[in-house]
């Protein structure tokens, strides 16, 4: 699975944190609000209960009744949501507020004098009703004492409605706040991550060969990365150049003595020892040539170097070979797909194509055809290269093909006098992640094909 982007990660974590934070806040606020509301209901009921007790008068039947001028008018309005009840200890309901009519509520539990109880009941229509009851001992004027239970109750529906409104507001405010916060965070992230996106863009440009290194003006935190990356790109280029130069000097200082040795042997071919020496010189030459060419291959990604214009590179080679083989009057066709680029090392490409073309010119009777096209692979950002060189010469027999490509690697076994050009091609193609195929051309001769996939 692909790791998620930095901004997605950050936004996701911040969202989780915000939801957690707001969730806890909402729960806490809700709790506090409910607690406060319940307490205030209790206090109210307490006040009502005391008022009811203090307004009580004896009635003729040995019960208690609130005085007619009882301040709380809600007791008398049915459906007011405020209820009251006075019940004698023997269960005789001494007084029930008119508002209780039709509610089916029986407010008073059995209580001993001095006992208090706070409870919840459901009225006939399902509404929640909070009840406060208290048992008292009443001494009548005839000195008789009787126990009563006083109850007051209040319908909680208005409170629930309020709670609902409160919650709706709470959620909408917090929701809006969260959207605002996440939105500003996203904008902030965009701005913060802009340099990172620039790095990404510039690396892509380096890959595409439009840039040789990353630009300047990065923030301090990224400067380390970009500077190091540039140093890496530069040192890679310099290293290859230095390395190739050293190899070139090595070749020069090694081959010149070989050339001297060969020259000293000129005209002595009648002597068997001279022939053997000459053969050994040839072997040494081939070993050095093959190994140095292998070593000098970049085999790299060509990062930080401009892509090679394939037409231009092949056109130069074609011109050079036509000049060298001018006596052979060979016709060399060059077909390059428009816009064909090689994202790799120019020297590697020239070396491979040069050896292939040279081989073709060497064997052709009159025609050589060089075809280059893009090799696109699904999922790859850049194109690879597909090169075909054909000639109308004798071709390479099937049995010989593997050996021709293998010659350089098995120099010790080889017979002197055969070229190592095609094995160099194979080696370089493989170092660049590609492959070589030998076949027969419709022209009649050999067909050499290399496929260099994108790196």
């Amino acid at each position, binding site marked *: 699975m692909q790791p998620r982007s930095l901004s997605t990660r950050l936004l996701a974590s911040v969202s989780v944190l915000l939801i957690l934070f707001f969730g806890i806040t909402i729960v806490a606020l809700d709790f506090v609000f409910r607690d406060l509301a319940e307490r205030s209901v209790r206090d109210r009921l307490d006040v009502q209960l005391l008022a009811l007790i203090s307004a009580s008068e004896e009635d003729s039947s040995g019960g208690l009744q609130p005085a007619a001028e009882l301040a709380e008018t809600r007791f008398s309005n049915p459906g007011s949501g405020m209820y009251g009840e006075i019940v004698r200890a023997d269960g005789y309901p001494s007084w029930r507020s008119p508002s209780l009519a039709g509610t089916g509520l029986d407010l008073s539990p059995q209580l001993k004098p001095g006992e208090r109880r706070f409870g919840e009941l459901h009225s006939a229509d399902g509404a929640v009703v909070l009840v406060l009851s208290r048992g008292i001992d009443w001494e009548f004027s005839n000195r008789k004492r009787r126990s009563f239970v006083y109850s007051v109750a209040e319908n909680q529906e208005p409170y629930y409605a309020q709670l609902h409104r409160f919650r709706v507001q709470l959620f909408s405010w917090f929701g809006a706040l969260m959207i605002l916060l996440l939105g500003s965070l996203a904008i902030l992230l965009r701005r913060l991550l802009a340099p990172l996106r620039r790095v990404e863009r510039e690396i892509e440009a380096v890959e595409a060969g439009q840039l040789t290194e990353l630009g300047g003006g990065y923030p301090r935190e990224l400067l380390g990365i970009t500077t190091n990356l540039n140093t890496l790109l530069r040192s890679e280029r310099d290293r290859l150049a230095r390395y190739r130069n050293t190899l070139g000097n090595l070749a020069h200082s090694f081959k010149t003595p*070989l050339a*001297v040795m060969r020259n000293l042997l000129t005209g002595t071919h009648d002597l068997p020892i001279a022939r053997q020496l000459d053969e050994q010189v040839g072997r040494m030459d081939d070993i050095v040539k093959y190994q140095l060419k292998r070593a000098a291959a970049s085999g790299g990604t060509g990062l930080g170097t401009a892509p090679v214009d394939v037409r231009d590179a092949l056109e130069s080679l074609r011109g050079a070979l036509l000049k060298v083989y001018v*006596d052979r009057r060979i016709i060399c066709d060059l077909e390059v797909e428009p816009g064909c680029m090689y994202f790799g090392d120019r020297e590697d490409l020239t070396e491979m194509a*040069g050896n292939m073309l040279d081989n073709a010119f060497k064997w052709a009777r009159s025609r050589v055809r060089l075809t280059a096209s893009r090799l696109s692979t699904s999922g790859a950002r850049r194109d690879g290269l597909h090169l075909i060189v054909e000639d109308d010469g004798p071709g390479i027999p099937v049995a010989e093909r593997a050996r021709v490509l293998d010659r350089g690697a098995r120099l010790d076994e080889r017979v002197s006098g055969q070229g190592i050009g095609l094995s160099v091609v194979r080696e370089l193609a493989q170092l660049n992640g590609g492959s070589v195929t030998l076949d027969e051309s419709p022209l009649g001769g050999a067909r050499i094909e290399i496929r260099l996939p994108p790196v």
Partner: protein
Amino acid sequence: MRLLVVEDETALRESLVGQLKEAGFNVDAAADGEEGLYCGREYALDLAIVDLGLPKLPGLELIRKLRAESKSFPILILTARDKWQEKVEGLQAGADDYVAKPFHFEELLARVQALLRRSGGWAQPILRCGPVALDPRTQEVTVHDKRVELTSFEYRILEYLIHRAGEVISKAELTERLYAQDFDRDSNTIEVFIGRLRRKLDPDDTLKPIETLRGRGYRFALQRDSGG
């Protein structure tokens, strides 16, 4: 034919010069790029052999400079690195062919002769003018398919004249191209050799292959057979 060898490795340069002289060329040698440039500017050369890895002035630069000064003699490059990029650059800079070190002298000689032949406008390996044929590879001369024995110097004069058949070549040019610098440059010797050549090629005085243009020089008068 006058050749220049520009090669910094003394042993190789000396053996090359010796072998080329033996093959009948008039050879100058230079040990570095600057000396090579001087020789290329000052001498009337027919061909230069230039090593690419030269001190002071790299071979590629030397070739570019000579070509920029309209020196049109063929140039053969010697390369030790044997990289295609280098060969292509060399050929684009104005060289005409390359030989990779270590080479067989026979191969180098064949390339030199092919370049000389082409620079004289000859397409075929054997130079034919009417009944006269000259093969630079074997240094054999025939008239009506009969072999003519020539001394080394007679051959060199004839080769030069046939190479540039149809052109007028002054005695001074012949002297410069065929004699080494320290040679006694008496132009009368040229006349003597021309006289001998005429007798050997045309004993009956019917072909008249070599014309004398008074005060201007000589011309090989027979029509080229092909590639002319």
